[in-house]
Structure formats: C-alpha cells, structure tokens
C-alpha cells in the first residue's frame, strides 16, 4: 500500500488531494518511528488500537479499509482496490480543481 499511496501524493497537487490515515496500532511511539522511517508524508489520527473510537464509529472490520471522499465531503468510494483508486481520483480531483477555481475567480462583472 505505501508505494501506491506515495505515487498518489506525487500525482495530485496538495491543494486538491490529501491522504488521511486512521492508525490503529496500539503503540504510538512505534508508529511515529515507522512513519519517519518509511517517509509517509501524510497525517494520521492515532486511534490507539483496532477498537479505537474512530474505527469503532466507522465500523471497520478489516485493515486496510479505504474510503474516498469528494471535495464536498461526500463518500464516493468504499474499499476501492488496485487501479480503481486511481480511476476514482482521476474523476474526482479535476472536479475539486474546478470548484476551487470557481471560488478564487472574481465573480463575473454585471
């Protein structure tokens, strides 16, 4: 999973795409070391274990579990695998880009 995630971080700009992790390792220090050692450049909540509050609320049954959420906060994909992840992101990231552009551009003059 790590190499694929790294490739996604490289592929899409930080303004429109982010990976967020929910880490379920019981040992926080160990996971900080792993993140540093493997150069995982995305943030993760630390959930304290597989029965942590976030994994519990999200009813996670297996690891890894992946969701893709669009720029409006809507869940667009659950458990995509392999190149499905890229296909979903290739569809959603340009839409986020468009929406960001509309926001920053001044409103058309009357």
């Amino acid at each position, binding site marked *: 999973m790590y190499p694929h995630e790294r490739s996604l971080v490289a592929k899409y700009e930080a303004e429109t795409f982010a990976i967020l992790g929910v880490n*379920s390792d019981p040992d926080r220090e160990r996971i900080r070391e792993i993140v540093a050692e493997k150069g995982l450049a995305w943030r993760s909540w630390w959930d304290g274990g597989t029965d942590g509050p976030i994994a519990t609320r999200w009813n996670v049954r*297996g*690891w890894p579990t992946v969701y893709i959420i669009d720029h409006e906060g809507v869940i667009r994909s659950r458990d995509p695998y392999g190149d499905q992840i890229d296909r979903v992101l290739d569809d959603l990231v340009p839409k986020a880009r468009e929406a960001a552009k509309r926001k920053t551009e001044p409103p058309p003059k009357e």
Partner: protein
Amino acid sequence: MRRLSRLAIALAALATATSLGAQDETLLDPAKPTSAARAALDALETEFRAAQDAYYKPYSDAKSDEERAAITLDPALDPVPIFVERYAALAREHSGSAEAVAAWMWVFHSGSRSPRSAEAVSAAVDVLIEEYRDHAALAETVKFAFYAGSSEPCLRLLRALRERSERAETRAAATYGLAQLALQGPSRDEARARELLEEVREKHASVPFHGKRSYGEQVERDLFELEHLAVGKVAPEITGEDIDGKALSLSEYRGKVVLLDFWGDW
C-alpha cells in the same frame, strides 16, 4: 492484497473459534485434557495445511506479480474435495463432540470454495441443522458462517438456525449473519438487512458478540454504517489528535478529495 488480508482475518477468527471449542471441552472434562477427537482433528488440520501449501506453492515461489498472474493451478489437484471427505468421516466418527461441529463447519466453509464439493456441503448443512442446532460449540463457530457468502447452503443453514435453535447465541448469530448476507452481492437488500438487524436488537441485545461487545452494541454500529457510511452519504466528522499529538479534523479538508485510509503496520 486487501482481499487476501480480509480472508486471513476471517480464517484467524475461525481458528480461534476452533480452539475455543477445545478449551471448553477441557474445562468440562479435566480428566481428559486432550481427547481422541481433538487429537484427530489437530492431525487432520496439520495434514491439510501441508497439502494446501504444496498446492499453492507456485504462488509462494513466484517472485513478481507477473509471475503470479501467469500461474494456472490444476483444479483436479485441489486438496479441498479430498479433505472435505476426510473431515466428514472424522465428524461421523466423533459424532456429538465439539470437534464434530468444528469438522462439519470445516466442510461447510472449505467446501463452499470448491464447486466439486457442493454435495458434501449440502450434507454438512443437513447434519448441522438436524443434529447440532442446539450444540454449544455451534453457537460460537456459527458467528463466522456468513463469511461463506450468500450461497444456498449458507442461507439454508442460517435460516434454519434462526428459526429452530434453542440457543439464543445461535439464533442471534444466525439472524445477524443473514443481515450481513442481505447486504452482499447484486441482490443487496438494505431494507431486509435493517429488519434483521432490528430483530437482533430487539431479541438478542444482551447476547455477547465479540470480546466485551454485545449484539446490541454491534447492531448500533451496523445501523450507523447503513445510515451514514454508504457511498453518496456525507462522511461523518472525525476529530482527534494525529500521531504527533496535533489536533486534526476531517472537516479541515473540505474542498479537497480525501483518501481516508484505516491502517496499521502489522
């Protein structure tokens, strides 16, 4: 990889269920810490693992995904159909024991993955329903029956146990399993799943599900998932601290596409 790791979790859960059966028996009969049935089951399991490792050896030997993609295994050499017969024989020999339940459930689970074992699976389901529906060992292991997927034998087993078992744990597990199956595949039926989950909540809320968690608590999670975690729903807010102790909330990322990854390095 993801599929494989989920299967591994399911199988690990099964293995735990099998060993729980063994512990129960030890508790009930301290004079016989290892019964003949247990020893026979353990030996058969060891033999099966070796046969399975041999069959899948090309995969473990493959050095790349390309090599793996090129492998074709001869289904005639698949050890499952042979071992299905042997587990069934063991179950008949030690009829009535916790090991017999474990062996019939093995036939059910492993046979469900092999089209050549359809008859044996159907026979195992008949025996489990007719002879073991009230057995203590079945109450534990039937929790994992729905991992076999939405097949006719699996549905038949769970429906019969839901209606006919005298044990609340077994009825709870069967009803819960049917709810999970209703959510699978192209005939996904959320309304039916909700009905079954609500039946579990109504009738079996205090029955233990897993660890300290009861069916009541588990069903709340599943209903929350149906309501809020499906594709098309607005993701619930997540707040908390990141691994460095800094505050982090999902809503900070509104405007960006987020890949949310529940992960662990284990």
